[in-house]
């Protein structure tokens, strides 16, 4: 069965991916970004994990990136940032731009680019595409510089704090849907634990988004037979407030 893992095989190097991804998630939450520079990440790693990965004080970012690369899974990738290599969520350039613009509306396009690990040749087509589609719009400031703002947010509105208890944002919904499609590879019934694994979101955030998608009838949750699943897979599926266990979901077409 796809993605099935044996229970109880968490020892030594087998723990690395989970621990590493947990550290990355924490760092991203703290910095409210979709990427961390490699030195930032290394600073946040516990000594034991650094030793296991063979990272010492003098190891260069390029070598560090090579060592951690194999453990990142499908949720993260290495990108070349403005001044350093970065560990970035595996999302499209357009999505990176949109999410950053949503977090910090009212930045000029240059300021926005400076906050992203994207080359000029990646950033401009992504921004233009979002503007053409009408996902972002521009207003001009007194210096006639364009300020980029997502549609639906008033120009010049303060940066909205991302709260775990707040309603689902458009990018969260899109990220969830994209994960469903990526993990499902054309299937309609997709296992929830695989989507959770792919997104690598904190548990509360994932459950909150899933509950909201369900309440909006965007997804349907299905029980199914958990007897052949490992304990971890069951835990990483979804239990609602009533204690009902759901192991798969379908994206609604209505």
């Amino acid at each position, binding site marked *: 069965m796809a993605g099935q893992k044996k229970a109880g095989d968490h020892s030594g190097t087998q723990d690395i991916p989970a621990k590493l991804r947990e550290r990355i998630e924490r760092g991203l939450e703290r910095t409210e970004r979709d990427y961390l520079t490699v030195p930032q990440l290394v600073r946040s790693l516990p000594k034991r994990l650094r030793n296991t990965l063979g990272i010492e004080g003098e190891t260069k970012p390029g070598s560090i990136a090579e060592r951690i690369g194999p453990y990142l899974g499908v949720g993260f990738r290495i990108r070349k940032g403005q001044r350093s290599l970065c560990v970035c969520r595996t999302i499209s350039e357009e999505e990176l731009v949109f999410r950053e613009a949503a977090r910090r509306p009212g930045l000029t396009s240059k300021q926005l680019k400076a906050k992203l690990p994207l080359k000029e040749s990646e950033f401009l087509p992504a921004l233009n595409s979002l503007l053409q589609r009408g996902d972002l719009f521009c207003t001009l400031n007194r210096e006639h510089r364009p300020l980029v703002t997502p549609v639906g947010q008033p120009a010049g509105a303060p940066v909205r704090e991302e709260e775990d208890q707040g309603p689902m944002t458009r990018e969260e919904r899109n990220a969830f849907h994209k994960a469903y499609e990526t993990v499902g590879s054309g299937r*309609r019934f997709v296992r929830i634990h695989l989507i959770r694994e792919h997104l690598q979101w904190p548990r509360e955030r994932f459950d909150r988004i899933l509950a909201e998608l369900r309440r909006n009838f965007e997804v349907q949750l*299905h029980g*199914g037979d958990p*007897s052949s699943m490992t304990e971890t897979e069951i835990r990483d599926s979804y239990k609602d407030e009533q*204690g*009902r266990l759901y*192991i798969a979901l379908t994206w609604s077409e209505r």
Partner: protein
Amino acid sequence: MDREEKLRVLRRKNPFVSVSAGDPWELAYPDVEEVNLEPFEGLSALIREIADNPGTNCAGLVLGEVGSGKTHLISRLLELGRRGDPPFVFAYVQPLEDPEQTFRYLLRETVINLCRPLHQDQKGGSSALDLLVSRILVGDVLNESVRAEGERARKTLQCLRRDPLRVFSMGRERLSRLQRRGVAFLRRSFGDMSGDMARALFAYVDPETRADAVNWLKGAVLDDEDAERLRVQSRSEYSGAALEQEARDVLAGLGRLLARYRIPLLTCFDRLENLETPEQIRAQGKMVEFLVDSVRSVLPVIFARGLQWEETMRDQLNQHVVSRLEANQFVLANCTPEQALALVCERLRIAFGMKVLDHLYPFDEDELREVFSVGLSPREVIAQANRKLRSILREEPAQAESAEDRLRREFKSQVQAVRGDPDSHPPDRGRLRRALELYLGNGLEDGKAARAGSVARPAKKDKYVDLEVLRSQERKGAKGLMIIDTELHHASVRAALKRGVQHLEKNPKNFVLYIRDSRCAFPEPPKWKATNEMLETFRAKGGIALFLDPEQAAEWYALALLAYAVREGDISLPDSGSGSRSVSWSEFKDFINSGLRDDGIERVAEQLRKLAHGGGREIPQAHREQGGDIDAEQTADAAARILRDRPMYMASVSEVAAELPGDFSGRGQERLLRILKGDPDRFEIVQARDASLVKLKREWLHEQGERV
């Protein structure tokens, strides 16, 4: 009806207790049209398309997880056919056990379904096969024959056209006169239909030959005498491949007939979670492919769980089949709050016996709407309503029914269903094997299992052997065979027994159980002379033959069907947290282990234990102790059951003693003899030269209402 009265009604009968649709042949619960409307309308449209164009090649796929309403949807479609909108007939096919017999199984299940009464409430009412045969007779055969007859015959035909089924009430003589013409008509109109099939269809008209005709149509190998009576070729010399080919030919022939008379056949394949091996899954694919490509007027529809289909089945099937199925794929949806409220409303309306129900008292509609706002499956909706109602009525959260009790209740009800409708559960080697495997695989406690050794399907393909019992601790090197036989032809039966004899001759420590559903006749001498002699040889070599009477066999079939239902997640229990949950497979195994103690299937395990322990001569200590408690009446009853399965109802006292539970070996035989002598109305003791024989009296059997 005032509020107090409503509460009284609900206290008397809670309409939300059951969350399973149960038998697809009965629409057990009121229908809410909007729930799963799209799949229902989609499939109805496909049936209409096939009614208009019987040559349309299509299939359907319905995906839904546990509790999403698969079985209810099947019932709803069946109801649509009964209403005649459009008129169509229906087959409900459960999982295939033996991939070697794919097409024989499909044919058999199809014909069994075609023989069921079209309307559930009419026991013995007209079946789909009646409908088809009457259409052939009225629509074509009589139509031709009255041309040469007078006005009266034409008037009769006009009457019959209005109600073709009345053709069966025509005199037998008249019908037999039509037979030759009918066969000629079928051969002429359907060039590739065999003469045997045409003759079997017309033998169906005659009540005297109907049962044999149905057996032939099911693909059975008839005994020579029965084949001769039907004037069909004997299949006794056919190889397995030839039997499979003939099954395909008969199915294709049925399709052509259904197409001519514009009667679509909806074939629903359900409970496919029970297909365990790739061979079984591929065989399922072959059935669908064949129905789509080679049988006109049939719409095969697979009902499966979404995950199982996408992760397991889909990749093991021919892409041609997959594309056919997925072209008409429907996913069962959870209920919107409005649909969920309508489901609750319908159940309340039926409980109150009202035509219209305006409000949901005693429920608070807003509160329910909030609970249902997340989109629950139909089963979850009912379970939630049940929970709420219990709290409104201030009842305990859930009845303390254990999984074992629930399974026992379901098992008993399944046994009753099989006993009540034996025609729909004909002798089936695959299901008997499944039941035996389940029982022996899960029912033996550790100690007993050690005595019996392990039970498995034969490592090498063996036509006759169903299960092998490997080395036991006490009898190293010994191997036991279980031969399940449902063949009707004496040569096949003899060959199966011979396989047992050969095994016993190979090693005297070996043992063999020959098990036969007694509905498959085993005529006494002088009929089947050589086969009866083989049975005697088999017994003389130490083989044990078990002839399961219909009551015992019903328990075996019920166990296999219960296993299908558990795998499907169809047996549910109230759950204090989520409202309801499905009984798990491990709970089912526990039930087999502890819940079947008093049932007929236990007899096999008993035999097995004896054989494994010492060729039936020694009995485990535990049973020796139990034996002391068995009183004379119980012993006499058990002896009667053993003798009922014996030719001439007779066996040596030592043989009966060996088969009885308890210690009747050695001196115990004398005690047994005393008990049997003490019941002269039932038993007759015959003193032979070297042994005492005991015979069950026919008069006593007559008194019990049994046909002898």
